[in-house]
């Protein structure tokens, strides 16, 4: 009767383990293998002479601006999501009473529309004839040609797309946060700013970390939004990888870049350390 605990736990986890092993780990291992292959290995499974040429190409200084742009987009998106997501999450967790669940669901309702329809909605709102430009025109702040094809448009689009991934973990953290700590802090003579930075922020930090990670990673890998909302030179890491697989047909180079992106993610994950773990 008394089976060891780990046997039961492993049994419960086994289906998930099999699925992720087959359809996540094995494919990722294959990508790692491709990244060391010579270009155009064709259909063969065999790896032609192992080479690091793909990595040499991927780390070429020519790709540096693309790398930088990707990080800038992802970083700005994460910052903006935090800025918008925190007040919202705090408000829902602390002040919305029994409509809390309804408000949380309301955050998700717009996402039942098609992802591309949402991007095109922004496209329509931001272009020269769009509503934003016309409204700004009424106060004399309009801009010739609108705001489409700018870096700002890309960041707005990405922020819009990934905001729920920030709001949900932040909400969980805000809800768990014991508000009496704030009162205690006031009682002990701390001001608002000091209370926020020394009590509230550390208290909800796991949520901040988890949300940031969930926004940073997909926005660094996304290529659809930058392609549709960005200007002429809108290549990001994701779109360069996409080009290698779909257009350029240079699988080893695409794989090497995918591996580099993954390494970046792992670095962020390790830097996150123990503190984010209980939320993510």
């Amino acid at each position, binding site marked *: 009767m008394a089976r060891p605990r780990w046997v039961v736990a492993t049994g419960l986890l086994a289906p998930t383990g099999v699925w992720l092993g087959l359809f996540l780990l094995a494919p990722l291992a*294959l990508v790692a293998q491709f990244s060391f292959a010579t270009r155009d290995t064709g259909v063969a499974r065999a790896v032609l002479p192992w080479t690091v040429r793909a990595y040499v190409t991927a780390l070429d200084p020519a790709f540096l601006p693309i790398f930088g742009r990707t990080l800038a987009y992802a970083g700005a998106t994460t910052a903006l999501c935090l800025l918008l997501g925190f007040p919202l999450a705090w408000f829902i967790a602390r002040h919305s009473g029994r409509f809390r669940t309804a408000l949380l669901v309301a955050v998700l309702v717009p996402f039942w529309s098609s992802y591309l329809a949402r991007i095109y909605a922004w496209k329509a709102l931001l272009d020269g004839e769009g509503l934003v430009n016309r409204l700004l025109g009424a106060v004399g702040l309009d801009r010739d040609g609108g705001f489409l094809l700018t870096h700002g448009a890309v960041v707005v689009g990405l922020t819009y797309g990934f905001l729920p991934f920030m709001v949900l973990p932040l909400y969980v953290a805000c809800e768990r946060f014991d508000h009496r700590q704030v009162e205690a802090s006031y009682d002990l003579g701390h001001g608002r700013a000091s209370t926020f930075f020394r009590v509230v922020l550390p208290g909800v930090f796991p949520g901040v970390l988890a949300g940031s990670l969930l926004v940073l990673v997909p926005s660094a890998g996304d290529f659809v939004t930058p392609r549709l909302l960005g200007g002429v030179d809108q290549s990001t890491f994701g779109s360069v990888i996409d080009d290698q697989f779909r257009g350029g047909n240079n699988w080893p180079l695409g794989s090497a870049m995918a591996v580099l992106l993954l390494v970046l993610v792992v670095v962020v994950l390790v830097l996150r350390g123990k503190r984010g773990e209980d939320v993510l």
Partner: protein
Amino acid sequence: MNRRRWVLGAAAVLVFVFLYAPIVWLAVVSFNDSRSLSRVTGLSVRWYVELFHDSRVLDALGLSLRLATTSAVIATAIGTLAAFGLRRAFPGRGVWTILLSLPLVVPEVVLGVALLGFCVKLAGIPLGFGALLAAHVAFSLSFVVVVVRARVAGMDERLEEAAADLGASPLVAFRTITLPLVAPAVAAGAAFAFLLSFDDVVTSSYLTGVGSTTLPVFVYAQAGRRGVSPEIVALSTLMVGVSAALLVVGVLVVAWRARRASPASTFVGHVRDQ
């Protein structure tokens, strides 16, 4: 104190405006009589009519619905088991936790190209429904686990122990005590999984086969040539409309039940369940 709360409320309203502005705009232009998405020239329902006559859109929608449902069912079933597996400490739990957080952080483009290579060059899985299902379950599993696990962790184990003490078999205890307690989280996880699958463009775009295109991938391919078609805008409006209507019904039910529940204990229990 009150002023701060007011400022916070105003900020929350502004974020909701940001979230809903494009959706409201989509709803408005879905009734436009021209193809333009930026200027309304007149009102008509032609895009709704065309939507229901466009067999390619309807086929893609059908596939997306089947895929999202199947993937959500599988991900919810095995993800819920996994969440229970992680309930208590055991040797190896750390490794499992890392494995389960991996899908959350693998960029979609990486997962897409990896599965493309895997299906085509190694496993011989034909692109299409099977390959899409493999991918969608893989990336939505973790969300189910995160949501259900949070609920399982917050559960009072004494309830289950009490059931056992009263003679309930483990299975009966699970069905009558544990399952009702985690049901809201399981439902939330399933909804999340459905949504993630239903709206996925990037990963899916590598894995669709001939004649088996999901709706988002179909829209993306089409958008590349002519921009997003007003039919898709009409469809999006319908879907948001339905989910918003469900939300309103939910809110009304909560309000109604809260008013009806006279004993304070029922109310408190209900609020806690939220």
